[in-house]
């Protein structure tokens, strides 16, 4: 599975969204991505990539595009 596939899988698993809706602009506050779902998303992403994000990154994780930037900080290129 590519890193992009893993990222999409994390979003689908945590937010129960249709994969077609997972574009870079899909953001916190949009359909299904609320504050409660956000914690599930963090757990999913961490499990998919075997990382542990810092608090600041958990907060910065505000869109799919931003998720890619954050993953890069942990050495994961999506």
């Amino acid at each position, binding site marked *: 599975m590519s890193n992009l596939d893993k990222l999409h899988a994390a979003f689908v698993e945590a937010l129960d969204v249709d994969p077609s809706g997972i574009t870079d602009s899909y953001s916190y506050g949009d359909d299904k991505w*609320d504050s*409660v779902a956000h914690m599930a998303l963090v757990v999913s992403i961490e499990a998919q990539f075997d990382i542990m994000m*810092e608090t*600041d990154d958990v*907060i910065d994780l505000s869109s799919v595009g931003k998720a890619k930037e954050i993953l890069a900080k942990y050495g994961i290129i999506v």
Partner: protein
Amino acid sequence: MQPIDKLFQAEQYSIPQVKRDKLLVAELNSLTKFHYNNCPPYKNILDNLGIKVNRRRLNISDFPFIPVRLFKTQKIQSIPDSDVLKVLTSSGTTSQAVSRIALNRETSIYQVKALVQIITSFIGHKRLPMIIIDTDTIIKNKSSMNARGAGLVGLSNFGRNHLYALDENMNLKKDELTEFVNKFGNEPILIFGFTYMIWQYFYEECKKNNIKFDIPNSILIHSGGWKKLIEISVSNKVFKSSLESYFGIKRIYNFYGMVEQVGSIYMECEYGHLHTPNFAEIIIRDYHDWKVLPYGEKGIIQTLSVLPRSYPGHSLLTEDIGHVLGVDSCPCGRKGTYFLIEGRIAKAEIRGCSDTHAETVNNMELAG
């Protein structure tokens, strides 16, 4: 750069009062004008009081304030309904009026960032294994997220491997708790909950069932009001010493905050003093004439915050009583105003999150 950006950019509690005061005053001048121009009920109030909004205010004590109670009686927002991202409600029981606070994206982002800056300055940036002394049913009903739920979700950003330690009937999940502590007990654990619930459903239950952990590296953060605990003679001092002697927890931080100003929380330092963060200030006023009281004198607390952009909650008169201890001089080293809370004004209608829960339980018991 706007004053609010400077307040966010600087490390928390690092700005000396005189400098911070200037930034707050500049931001509050523009916020007061913004809300006056965009929130008709707020404009009416200021007009009726004969307050001139266009006069530039030089001191933080010059800004008009409205009672927190107003948010219970009418819809007060400065944005069109289409810009409302979510509505926060206070954790009132059915017998109480509930505050409704409309947030837009900007305010919501400021709130989260503020909370992160304040809390990480106390506990660091690494997320810790976290025990939440509450039930997860409170966050599952998303359509009616109240202050208690929002508080739990907000604080959960600082943790990982979250364990909600209570079931839906407020019973302690003893086996899960023991398993969690066995697994993570060697590292610092973050424990969060509302003050009364930690006492009643965690501490008392552990004692009763002889469940004992030694978790000296752990950090406990709690909030939500003391009313119920004061009734059973549990002061902040007793609370801290009991939890320390039973679990070994040394780092215990209470914080003062309200749903009408989420994000602007006042954390208790190692010396037991509450501190104003970069983006907020408190002023103590006389009950009779609203004059500003000198340090050390007890009065009603006015809270000012630069975070509310979607509703005129930037300057509020609370129903809490307290006194200022000093400015820039706390032995913990944090800059800014530091203070203590004494309680609520008599017959205040509103209560804290944990007190509300206690009341619900008591009412249910009476009804049953």
